[in-house]
């Protein structure tokens, strides 16, 4: 049985046509089963937990965007009831990096078809020391100006301080003030940079049990020597500057934070265009 987690955005007027198409297609395919709608009272956590507790649902399908998928995955992984039979799927209503990773088509009907086919793969789950799980990446956002005091200092000193981040990897530390830094489990969102930097996209795989630290400067044209690529299983991010991090482009995390990966922890429904 399939259980669908409908995000609020699914009910938007602009998505009315897509929603109708999805309902019709799922009905046609005979997989329009139970659903839970995210609202002020019903959180993704409570909906997923309820679905798994019922014992009737092993396939939890997020319907929405990256945030919906991210919250649903976290809810599945943190639920005491979820087990090896539990499967995650996504029907994307917006452009989504997680959908790209899983190869779920942006065309709603094709996405429904992929759900019905239920081709399964086990994928790695990255996690942070604050208990957040992610499929795609942990993006590190370095704001050019730091605290209010630093802002004032920078105003008078002409030279704007570029915030830096230190990442501990095995027996060494990496210090960088690159414009874009990410700890990636999947290449989604980084394909163009990896290609231009001469790095094989297949090296960033969500099935290899490794994380990849990618850092590059967006200010100049992307070239190989502007890009860093380091592979490890565990990393720790620290920074004295004011930086923030986004897990799966959704959840904000503050440093210091440790990051690890658990090999092929979650069963997911994939499409033909998956990135692994």
């Amino acid at each position, binding site marked *: 049985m399939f259980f669908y987690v409908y995000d609020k955005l699914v009910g938007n007027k602009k998505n009315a046509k897509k929603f109708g198409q999805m309902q019709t297609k799922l009905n046609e395919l005979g997989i329009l089963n139970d659903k839970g709608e995210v609202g002020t009272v019903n959180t993704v956590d409570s909906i997923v937990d309820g679905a798994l507790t019922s014992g009737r649902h092993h396939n939890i399908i997020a319907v929405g965007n990256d945030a919906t998928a991210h919250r649903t995955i976290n809810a*599945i*992984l*943190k*639920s*005491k009831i*979820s*087990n090896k039979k*539990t499967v995650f799927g996504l029907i994307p209503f917006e452009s989504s990096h997680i959908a790209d990773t899983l190869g779920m088509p942006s065309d709603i009907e094709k996405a429904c078809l992929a759900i019905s086919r239920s081709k399964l793969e086990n994928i790695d*789950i990255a*996690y942070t020391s604050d*208990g957040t*799980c992610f499929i795609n990446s942990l993006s590190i956002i370095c704001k050019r100006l730091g605290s209010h005091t630093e802002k004032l200092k920078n105003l008078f000193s002409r030279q704007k301080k570029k915030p830096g981040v230190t990442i501990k990897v*095995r*027996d*060494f*530390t*990496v*210090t*960088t*003030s*690159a414009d874009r830094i990410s700890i990636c489990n999947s290449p989604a969102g980084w394909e163009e940079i990896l290609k231009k*930097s001469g*790095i094989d996209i297949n*090296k960033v795989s969500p099935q*290899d*049990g*490794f994380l990849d630290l990618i*850092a*590059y*400067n967006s200010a100049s044209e992307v070239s*190989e*020597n*502007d*890009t*860093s*690529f*380091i*592979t*490890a*299983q*565990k990393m720790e991010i620290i920074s004295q500057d004011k930086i923030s991090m986004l897990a799966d482009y959704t959840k904000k995390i503050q440093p210091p934070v440790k990051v*690890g*990966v*658990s*090999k092929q*922890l979650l069963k997911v429904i994939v499409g033909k265009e998956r990135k692994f």
Partner: protein
Amino acid sequence: MFKNNEGEIQPAGTKENVETIIGASVKVEGDLIGQNNMKIYGQVAGKVVTKGDIFIEESANIEADVEANNVTISGTVQGSVKAIERLEVQKSGKISGDIAAKILSIATGANFSGQCNMSDNNSQDTSPLEKLKEKTPLPKVDVREQ
């Protein structure tokens, strides 16, 4: 589910056939130890060791001892360099430190200050290729002029 599986994480290691790239904007401190090829454009202070090959590019500034199978230097190295097989110093390369290699190539214009050791015993470790050669000696080929 998540917590229960935390203990299943494999011990730290390095993925096969993956290159490590240290970009120009990156500074590495500590022991950068790997199994695969490395390309360095940025700064490294500490130690760089790999079983693969190392390419120290023109923008790189290394204050570390370097050890690899093959080493190609176009940047600046302050520290000893040990290549199990071949050490190649390009014309833009600068080395301040002792070097050791089986095969050495220093281009015109390169800068080298230190001692050079080209004996076969420059490394206590034996490369995988050498180990293979030791186990299966190459057959003697009888070359006759026709």
